[in-house]
């Protein structure tokens, strides 16, 4: 397990707990009392950390190398019965965007999401979770399939952005994202979107227009990453912490500003500390939201979805 610098107190307690376990196993000394004490200290340290996290620390947690990625969620939530679907039917199969069918407790869903790689080789294959136009077009093809068969859609968002490459421009990255946003606005089936890691800009929104848009507790969602924002507005890479504050990109700020529908709590210390617990929470949340949406007439679903996004923005007009 990798630790971020601000996770140092947790690392220390993890190590003490591991030592206590090892000592108990080696020498047979009963360490139960001190383990109980250490676990309590750990819980306290995690609660303290949670209460004090800065926006930049949330951004770091959203990128934690131990954090589960899209496929891990889908595999766990569907009990290993996920069937992946490939290809946009025009150019190729984008490995940075995955999609396919599975069921949670007997309810089938069409799943879509950006996939980051779990090691160096896979990170390259997955293009660091940065989809090309064909990824967005694959996602749309599958979402239209779900609509055709009247089944709900779940999108798991985790991307540092849509890929800014040469071929991406040639093949219409802007058009692909734009088309998805428009078509998602009028899908006649329930659409549930969840930011599970990084929600960077148009690359995130390209699979992010839903009846429910939720953020996990330690994720970020904005128009630009704090690093790029720092480099553009402050003309230096050194203001990423300040930019993270200014962008109001945390789940709490996004909810407060009415730009998302809710926050999903992560296990103590973050999703990377207990992926299994995180999968269970998310499964339950998806089913809860689906039950709220499934009996709404499709016209109402679409009208309310469009109305929700059309209400976003802050401006004023003088009486004329």
């Amino acid at each position, binding site marked *: 397990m990798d630790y971020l610098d601000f996770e140092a107190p947790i690392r220390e307690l993890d190590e003490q707990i591991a030592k206590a376990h090892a000592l108990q196993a080696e020498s047979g000394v009963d360490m139960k009392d001190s383990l109980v004490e250490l676990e309590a200290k750990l819980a306290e340290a995690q609660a303290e950390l949670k209460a004090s996290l800065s926006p930049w620390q949330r951004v770091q947690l959203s990128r934690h190398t131990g954090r589960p990625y899209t496929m891990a969620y889908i595999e766990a939530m569907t009990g290993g019965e996920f069937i992946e679907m490939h290809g946009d039917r025009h150019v190729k199969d984008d490995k940075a965007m995955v999609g396919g069918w599975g069921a949670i407790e007997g309810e089938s869903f069409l799943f879509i999401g950006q996939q980051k790689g779990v090691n160096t080789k896979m990170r390259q294959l997955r293009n660091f979770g940065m989809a090309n136009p064909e990824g967005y077009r694959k996602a749309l093809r599958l979402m239209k399939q779900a609509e055709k068969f009247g089944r709900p859609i779940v999108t798991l968002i985790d991307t540092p952005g*849509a*890929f*800014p*490459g*040469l071929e*991406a*421009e*040639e*093949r*219409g*990255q*802007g*058009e692909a*994202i*734009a*088309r998805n*946003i*428009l*078509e998602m*606005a*009028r899908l006649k089936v329930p659409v549930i979107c969840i930011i599970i890691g990084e929600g960077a*800009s*148009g690359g995130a*929104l*390209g699979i*992010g*227009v839903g009846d429910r848009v939720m953020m996990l507790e330690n994720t970020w*969602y*904005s*128009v*630009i990453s704090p690093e790029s*924002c720092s480099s*553009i*507005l*402050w003309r230096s890479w050194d203001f990423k912490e300040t*930019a993270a504050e*200014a*962008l*109001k*990109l945390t789940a709490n700020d*996004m909810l407060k*500003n009415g*730009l998302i529908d809710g926050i999903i709590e992560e296990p103590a210390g973050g999703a990377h500390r207990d992926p299994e617990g995180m999968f269970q929470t998310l499964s339950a949340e998806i089913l809860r939201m689906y039950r709220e949406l499934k009996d709404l007439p499709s016209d109402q679903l679409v009208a309310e*979805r*469009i109305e929700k*996004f*059309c209400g*976003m*923005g*802050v*401006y*004023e*007009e*003088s009486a*004329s």
Partner: protein
Amino acid sequence: MSTDWFHRQEAGITTPTQEKKETPDGLWHGCPKCKVIVSAEDHVNNVWVCGNCGFHNGIDAKEYFSFLFDGGNYTELNPTMVSKDPLQFEDTKKYSDRLKATQVKTGLQDALTSATGEMNGIPVAIAAMNFKFIGGSMGSVVGEKIARTIDYSLKHNIPFIMISKSGGARMMEAAFSLMQMAKTSAKLALLDEAKIPYISLLTDPTTGGVTASYAMLGDINIAEPGALIGFAGPRVVKETIGKDLPDGFQTSEFVKEHGFLDFIVERKHLKARMSQWLRFVGNLPAPVKAE
């Protein structure tokens, strides 16, 4: 195809704002590309295009309105809308100060002006971006004014024309800016369902979140010659691929060759070509006197 959208309004559209074509400061205009000098008056009469080399100088909403609407007559929509700085954003300057200073300097309220009037006798609603207002960046006001212009098109059953010219999102409005992509695209879905024509004109430059939302969603997407059009800016693409970009990368001509524009149109033919397309899709009679 229904032509409901052509049904003329009862004398509803009044045209009180007779705008004179603005003459640039001074009596002469030097072309930034070929350096040929013409009188300021000729420059305006040539719709701010160099008569020698064809360079299309960047112009803002009011200049487009002056030659697209018949007789330069139009009614502006939602003219007083301004941003409220929802995040109290501050980088090297306060966003609220930046807004005020830009409003004073440009005489504009924000980066978008919208209006309605007739174009070769066809009633239309046009939303056009003002690049000189914080790089034509898209914040809440831009998104809301586009949404309201589309509402106007829907209510009056008239075609919608969008003239884009923008560096993309307004970072100082962060996620509020991002969600304007969803707002405008969702409204365009309604316009599409109502089968009302939507023309998207892309001008120099059109990049970022604007390209990834309304600018690429026209029934026809068209562009002025030589405009920079892309999702990622050329500097970012260059850094990504680690080598020089091919000649002509992300120009109108490049984007058309790759299949994302219906045609490229010189500014002097813009009004005629847009009217012509509207006449064809609506199966309308040709005007008695072509303009």
